[in-house]
């Protein structure tokens, strides 16, 4: 009659499995029905008929409908908390966990396999700094530690992850006879009772009636036995311990019988015959007394050992005082005996059925004045909400409801025990949502660089899994050596296409803490998945090598992120189910949520020109280093270059001018907009502005706020106030790394500005910048950097500033500047800044190129297209400018060049390494050639959306622009023939008016 929850779950799963065929058929019917109904759905308001509801309910066995709206229906399995979403328009069913995992899973085993049933998992460092992972199935659902409740439009699940009690904690060590019978035995069947009685010994402490002569005869022979005997006798004084079981009782009766027989005999017979019999009887009595003595001794030892092991302040039996045992006098208790692990497991199951819990055991232990096992400390609470919002499923984990042990006593942490805090360091959400088995997944879209696809069926299982941090890495966390490029996800979106359906996930909240992860079938299990993991709390591991402590010390901030982690899932179908569809959906989402307007009236794509003003150089006079600036391009010279370009017919120039601030490219603390004297001072900047106004070019002077240089005592930078702190409380700096060794290199100190001081600094700068009369500004690093400040007290609420808060602060600053009427240029552009930016430079045209990625797609460009002007990396900084040029055409990016008027000084005099290909004279002719070549295409597509992008052959891509045409580019060295049209090698073809077929 044992009911194993594990087995029962298994049976549920296999039941799901067995209904697969039925399910798919029904899904098809639903789809058909939808298709039929869709004709009159335009008119009908709800679009959901009762039949559909019934079908839907049938389609999801073991699941219960908990919420629905016009577009979606949400189902939940209340025993496993799995959910499923029905997309009513297409009939697609999306499961939170692969429905056929029992059968399909061939790689993972044991808990890894069971993990496929989890909806979330968390990571924490235990008290010995080992990283541990708990998931909602293995560590919560299995123990029944969850609650499902309904909320408007959805459902809310509270998980308690981590078992409160260890195995066997519910088995009482000592329990009074009546409680044992009442709470356990009476609720079990005969077999169960026997199992318990086998392992529990009933012990009575009774007035010693001296019925067994010699009292307790210790089983242990010799002096220690005698000592034990006297010990027991002295502890129990005139009481004694006797086993309460039948054998003892029978033996005792036997003994009494024999004794009376003996007495009878002695009284009756006095001859020799009788003597033999008497001797015989005496022997038997003696043996029986011995047995009884041993039984009593065993019972006493068991009782005393149990007390000794479970009472604080007692480490030896000799420490037990008689007065400690008065409460046991005349009592009958059951004491737990030795048992192997498998028996313990059985009894644990039985006692659970009996409804006796670890808390009950604790109560009994208290009444027996012993301490039972302690509850475990590593228990965590997480709440998840699934809400249907229009045609989206929104998954929310309220950060404020995360629970973790804070300053709890951990007896096991060190020999003496200590208080520990075990924060949740990361949360993985919906890892298996839409998980696809072999052959089911066309591709996974990940936001690495410009965007990239993973094709699980073309990926070897031996390549490393994918992960990319959203908005890049947090520089406030230290890096010991140059890491292998972790990548940078500018957009917090990811998705998966399966046949004619696709799911797109948009991380709406907590995105600055997210990492997008993906892996393919065969790597960890038989499924391909894409999901996000949130860093709930940053950790810095401090090497600690003193004599007192070896290893590392984990440092945590005082709290975890308090906002919500929110992921919005959109379901796409048919033509929409592609990366282009996802990008366009996301673009619509941005337009909708931020009220953006599209540029529809543009007539050209701008020409982006980056000019470098002054750079810091150092020279040496008599061995004394002298730091100064060297003007690569003065304001006057900048005007000359722009003039050259506009005379050659280049219109709509956007000039990003860096290194104009005092100090050059590594400018002084930007408290004021002071122009470097070597680029000509503020008068020269004024004339540059006027000159550019004349030629219709826009001047975007560049300023960097997030990392600052110290330039002197009176530069306004107060390091203790304005600079972020690391978790180890030191001032946060950014290092440069040696190219060859990857080790930190000596260089100028570069500090990370505390986000709390950003607004102050920007306000101060902008006040001063206003006087230059320029209405455009390039906020380069605000677009692609977000750093937290772990100084306690840096935030207004007295706590620290986490990365999400820092992101919000940056957004606030940029939107403020934009609202003041400035045109803003940013670099890279994290998604949150797109609404406030007018143009974005440095939009990646490639991904990080990791092995798992199959191909790159211009996802980011499709999103940006028609919202803002954008350009990729400068063409002259790429090794192959023809390819860079073609890439610009494929992605609809503006052409971008980074130049200087004068050649860079010798390498020895400057630390900046990437100035090697800047001299404009070498480039201007080819740039003009490219501009003229591209203009025919770029002028046509200005302001148009990209509605299709496809790979026609290896290295041949076609991008179709809304309502104007398509461009086919061929990156190969040889010409390619596509659809009857020949594209020359390293060339392109403009197909005017070709709409999407």
């Amino acid at each position, binding site marked *: 009659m044992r009911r194993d929850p594990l087995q029962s779950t298994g049976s549920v799963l296999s039941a799901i499995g067995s209904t697969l065929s039925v399910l798919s058929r029904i899904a098809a019917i639903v789809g058909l029905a939808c298709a039929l109904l869709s004709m009159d759905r335009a008119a009908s308001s709800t679009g959901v008929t009762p039949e559909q509801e019934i079908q839907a309910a049938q389609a999801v066995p073991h699941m219960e409908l908990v919420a629905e709206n016009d577009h979606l229906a949400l189902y939940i399995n209340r025993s496993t908390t799995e959910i499923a979403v029905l997309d009513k328009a297409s009939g697609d069913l999306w499961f939170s966990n692969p429905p056929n995992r029992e059968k399909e899973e061939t790689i993972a085993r044991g808990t890894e396999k069971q993990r496929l049933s989890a909806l979330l998992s968390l990571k924490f460092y235990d008290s010995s700094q080992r990283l541990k992972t708990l998931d909602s199935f293995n560590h919560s659902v299995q123990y029944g530690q969850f609650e499902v409740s309904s909320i408007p439009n959805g459902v809310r699940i509270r998980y308690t992850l981590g078992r409160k009690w260890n195995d066997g904690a519910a088995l009482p060590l000592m329990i009074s006879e009546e409680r044992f019978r009442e709470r356990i035995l009476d609720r079990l069947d005969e077999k169960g009772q026997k199992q318990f009685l086998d392992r529990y010994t009933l012990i009575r402490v009774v007035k010693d009636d001296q019925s067994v002569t010699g009292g307790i005869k210790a089983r242990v022979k010799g002096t220690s036995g005698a000592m034990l005997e006297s010990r027991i006798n002295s502890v129990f004084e005139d009481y004694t311990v006797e086993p309460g079981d039948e054998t003892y009782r029978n033996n005792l009766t036997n003994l009494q019988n024999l004794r009376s027989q003996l007495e009878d005999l002695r009284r009756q017979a006095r001859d020799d015959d009788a003597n033999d019999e008497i001797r015989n009887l005496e022997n038997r009595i003696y043996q029986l007394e011995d047995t009884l003595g041993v039984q009593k001794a065993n019972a006493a030892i068991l009782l005393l050992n149990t007390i000794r092991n479970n009472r604080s302040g007692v480490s030896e039996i000799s420490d037990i005082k008689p007065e400690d045992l008065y409460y046991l006098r005349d009592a009958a208790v059951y004491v737990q005996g030795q048992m192997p692990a498998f028996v313990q497991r059985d009894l644990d199951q039985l006692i659970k059925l009996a409804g006796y819990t670890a808390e009950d055991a604790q109560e009994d232990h208290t009444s027996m004045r012993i301490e039972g096992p302690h509850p475990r400390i590593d228990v965590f609470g997480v709440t998840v909400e699934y809400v249907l919002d229009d045609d989206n499923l929104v998954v929310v984990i309220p950060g404020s409801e995360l629970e973790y042990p804070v300053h709890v006593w951990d007896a096991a942490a060190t020999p003496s025990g200590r208080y520990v805090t075990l924060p949740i360091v990361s949360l993985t959400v919906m890892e298996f949502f839409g998980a696809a088995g072999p052959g089911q997944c066309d591709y996974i879209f990940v936001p690495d660089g410009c965007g990239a696809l993973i094709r699980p069926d073309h990926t070897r299982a031996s390549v490393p899994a994918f992960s990319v941090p959203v908005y890049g890495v947090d520089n406030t966390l230290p890096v010991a050596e140059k890491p292998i490029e972790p990548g940078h996800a500018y957009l917090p979106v990811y998705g998966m296409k399966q046949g004619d359906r696709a799911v797109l996930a948009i991380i709406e909240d907590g995105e600055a803490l997210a990492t997008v992860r993906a892996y393919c079938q065969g790597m960890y299990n038989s499924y391909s998945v894409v999901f996000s993991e949130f860093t709930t709390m940053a950790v810095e591991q401090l090497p600690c090598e003193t004599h007192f*402590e070896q290893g590392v010390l984990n440092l945590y901030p005082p709290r975890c992120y308090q906002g919500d982690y929110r992921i919005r899932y959109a379901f796409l179908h048919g033509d929409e189910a592609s990366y282009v569809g996802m990008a366009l959906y996301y673009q619509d989402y941005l337009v909708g949520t931020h009220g953006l307007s599209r540029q529809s009236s543009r007539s050209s794509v701008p020409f982006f020109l980056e000019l470098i003003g002054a750079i810091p150089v150092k020279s040496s006079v008599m061995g004394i280093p002298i730091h100064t600036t060297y003007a690569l391009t003065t304001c006057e010279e900048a005007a000359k270059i722009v003039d050259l370009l506009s005379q050659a017919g280049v219109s709509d120039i956007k000039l990003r001018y860096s290194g104009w601030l005092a100090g050059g490219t590594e400018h002084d603390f930007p408290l004021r907009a002071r122009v470097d004297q070597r680029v000509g001072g503020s008068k020269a900047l004024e004339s540059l502005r006027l000159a550019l106004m004349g030629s219709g070019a826009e001047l975007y002077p560049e300023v960097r706020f997030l990392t600052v240089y110290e330039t002197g005592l009176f530069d306004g930078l107060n390091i203790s106030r304005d600079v972020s702190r690391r978790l180890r409380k030191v001032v946060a700096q950014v290092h440069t790394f*040696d190219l060859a060794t990857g080790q930190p290199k000596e260089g100028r100190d570069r500090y990370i500005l505390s986000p709390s001081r950003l607004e102050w600094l920007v306000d101060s700068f902008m006040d001063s910048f206003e006087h230059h009369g320029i209405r455009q500004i390039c906020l380069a690093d605000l677009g692609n950097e977000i750093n937290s400040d772990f100084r306690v007290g840096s935030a207004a609420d007295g706590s620290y500033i986490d990365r999400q808060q820092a992101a919000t602060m940056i957004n606030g600053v940029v939107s403020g500047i934009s609202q003041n009427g400035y045109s803003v240029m940013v670099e890279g552009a994290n998604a949150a800044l797109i609404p406030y930016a007018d143009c974005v430079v440095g939009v990646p045209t490639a991904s990080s190129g990791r092995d798992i990625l199959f191909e790159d797609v211009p996802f980011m460009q499709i999103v940006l297209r028609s919202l803002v002007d954008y350009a990729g990396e400068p063409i002259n900084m790429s090794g192959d400018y023809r390819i860079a040029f073609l890439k610009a055409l494929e992605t609809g990016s503006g052409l971008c060049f980074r130049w200087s008027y004068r050649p860079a000084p*010798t390498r020895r005099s400057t630390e900046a390494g990437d100035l090697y290909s800047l001299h404009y004279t070498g480039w201007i002719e080819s740039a003009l050639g490219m501009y003229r070549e591209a203009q025919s295409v770029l002028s046509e597509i200005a302001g148009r959306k990209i509605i299709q992008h496809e790979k026609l052959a290896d290295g041949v891509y076609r991008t179709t622009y809304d309502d104007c045409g398509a461009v086919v580019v061929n990156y190969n060295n040889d010409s390619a023939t596509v659809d009857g049209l020949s594209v020359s090698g390293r060339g392109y073809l403009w197909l005017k008016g070709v709409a999407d077929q």
Partner: protein
Amino acid sequence: MSAAGYPAFQSAIRLKASLLVTTLVVGLSLTAADAGYCASYIYDQWGRAVDAPEAYRAVRIVEGQSLGIGSFKEPQDIFVSPGGVVHVLDSANNRVVRLDDQWNVLSVIDEIETPTGPSRLSNPQGIFVDENGAIFIADTGNRRIVKLDAQGRLLAEFGPPQVEDVAAFTSGLGYMPLKVGVDKIGRIYVIARGVNEGLIRLDPTGNFTGFIGAPRVSVSLSDLVWSRIFTREQRDRMALFLPVEYSGLHVDDKGLLYVTVAAGETATLGELQSRPPIKRLSPSGVDVLVRQGFFAPAGDLDFAAASSDATVKGPSSLVDIATLGAGVYCALDGKRGRVFVYDSRGYLLFVFGSIGSRKGTFRTPVAVESMGKAILVLDSAKNSITVFEPTEYAHSILGAIVLEQIGKYDGAIALWEQVLKWNAHYELAHVAIGRAQLAKGLYREAMDSFRLGYDRKHYSEALADYRSEIARRYFGTIASCLAVVVIAVVVLRALGCRIPVLKRTMRRPSETASALFRNRSPFISRALSSVRDETGAHTSLLADLLYAFHVCFHPVDGFWSLKHTRRGATRAGAVILSVVCLAYVFMRQYTGFTFNTVDVARMNFLAEVASILIPFFVWCVVNWAVTTLMDGKGTARDVFVVASYGLSPIALIGVPLTIASNFMVAEEAQLYHLVLSGSVLWAALLIFVGTMVIHEYTGVMTTVSAVLMTVVGMGIVFFVALLFFSLLDAVRVFVAGVLTEYRFRL
């Protein structure tokens, strides 16, 4: 035994997959945008890594599955035959895959057809294909070299070489050939595991003809001692023993062998330079590699020391080498996954690649090979071949090198100018342009170019030309000026006028000086008035300073006088010392480019000054201490005065020499160094004499022993200081650790 001569058994061809799949899409074709970003760098003349444009780009990853022949399994070697056929030695699959230049499978040899029946390879490690298409395979597991034709038929088989006394063969290891190469006349070179006697050389029929490429044994004192003790046999064995284990082998089109040596983990840059890990061996085993670059080709020059806590440390572990034509060759670092490309003179051209999980990076790169312009890197862990193609930047550089070699200098210059457009700091381009300017007679411009290219030799040539041009141009003027001066002097002499100043200053500085200035500057005159006379206690600072000239030429007399009569000498000594420090810094920084080997931009004034002052004061203290024990009469003050006055020749000669060095050319280096060392010797002599004088030592030997003991004492002081500071550092680390723990734990 050529392949052509072997009878063709068409029916016996056992090719498991003789595929000619032309339509097959090969591997993952990558566009430029797909290619992984890899920070590319190059080493400058100081051995520092500096940014450089991307030189090679991964354009294609070739994997077994997509070729339709199943995944490669731990492939160990790759070879592109002269006919352009790519041979991949798929080691764990015990097969050879032949691919054409479009990456279509030509054939898969997984069984060798021998007269006695089929045979198989066993974990082969090296492959080579000769001009006739004969395939040589180091069949490691079978302890043999096999020679096959393109169809996989056995042409010849070479077992273990018949050589005695090779430790690796006699030990349990046995003969395990790893790499094989064949030169023009058919000699076979083999690298075998555990054999550190050099390369095994076999004649075309497989007979062992010796080891080549073991470095020459330099005889040290201990060797000499041992050779007295050892027998002749033992000596012979010892001569062979110098652990050189070759890791990679490539035979170039001239039949010379490029080889790589795996450098020791703890090797320093200096060791890499003195025992270079890349060699080019002639058939007789002489290293003929040209090493004219800033550093000898050795892979990475800058690397974390083996004792550091970096994740990847120690020098590059070069595993394979290949030539790219025009004398350009590339070596593969298996440790960091980098490919280093050098030109024929040993200049580093490019570095690319890394370990990683991105395209264009490797996990365990094992072999490098060139195919036309492309470079192929075989990765035995990723089981793939990465095809790198040069970017336009690299293309220009390689093109310019080729044009230079065939003598088309004009075309080369145009390309080099292109190169500078991409990389304004590319030294080779500057040098090439400088040479062109030199040829055109633009000496001044050429000097600038050579300076940018950091080419001292050519700079000196340009300077010589420039100098003589200037001399020619202004010969008339200079000559007439000189003539006027000479005539004037002669006339004045004839008229009986004397030129008083110089000689008198030399002899009697204070008097002359005061006499000189008495009537001209009341201020200086007042300062000089404090001079009483030669025996007086006070002399002016200026006089004391000028007395240095006297000391230089009359040290015995001078130092005696300094000790006994001139009390101001301490003051003057301090001034002289500071002047010497400044002069030293001046010399370090402003010595002409031809002779200056200091990284001027990195010079640190304090460090330079300290490099004079610390030994100076240690000398003073130790010398004083030592001579006190040795009955020296000199006081600490005397020691200081002697040392400081003794250094004055360095300033006196060094400064004019430094100025002159800017106009000197390399041919005058001997003169330059003679003068420079002359000044140092002079200073040393002065200090020696001074020591003798002030301590009133009568014998030279006593002085010599005092000086020697001072030097030894200085060594001890430095040693103790080193010990003290390392101890101090340990204390610092400990205290910092305790403080850290106190801050974060409590």
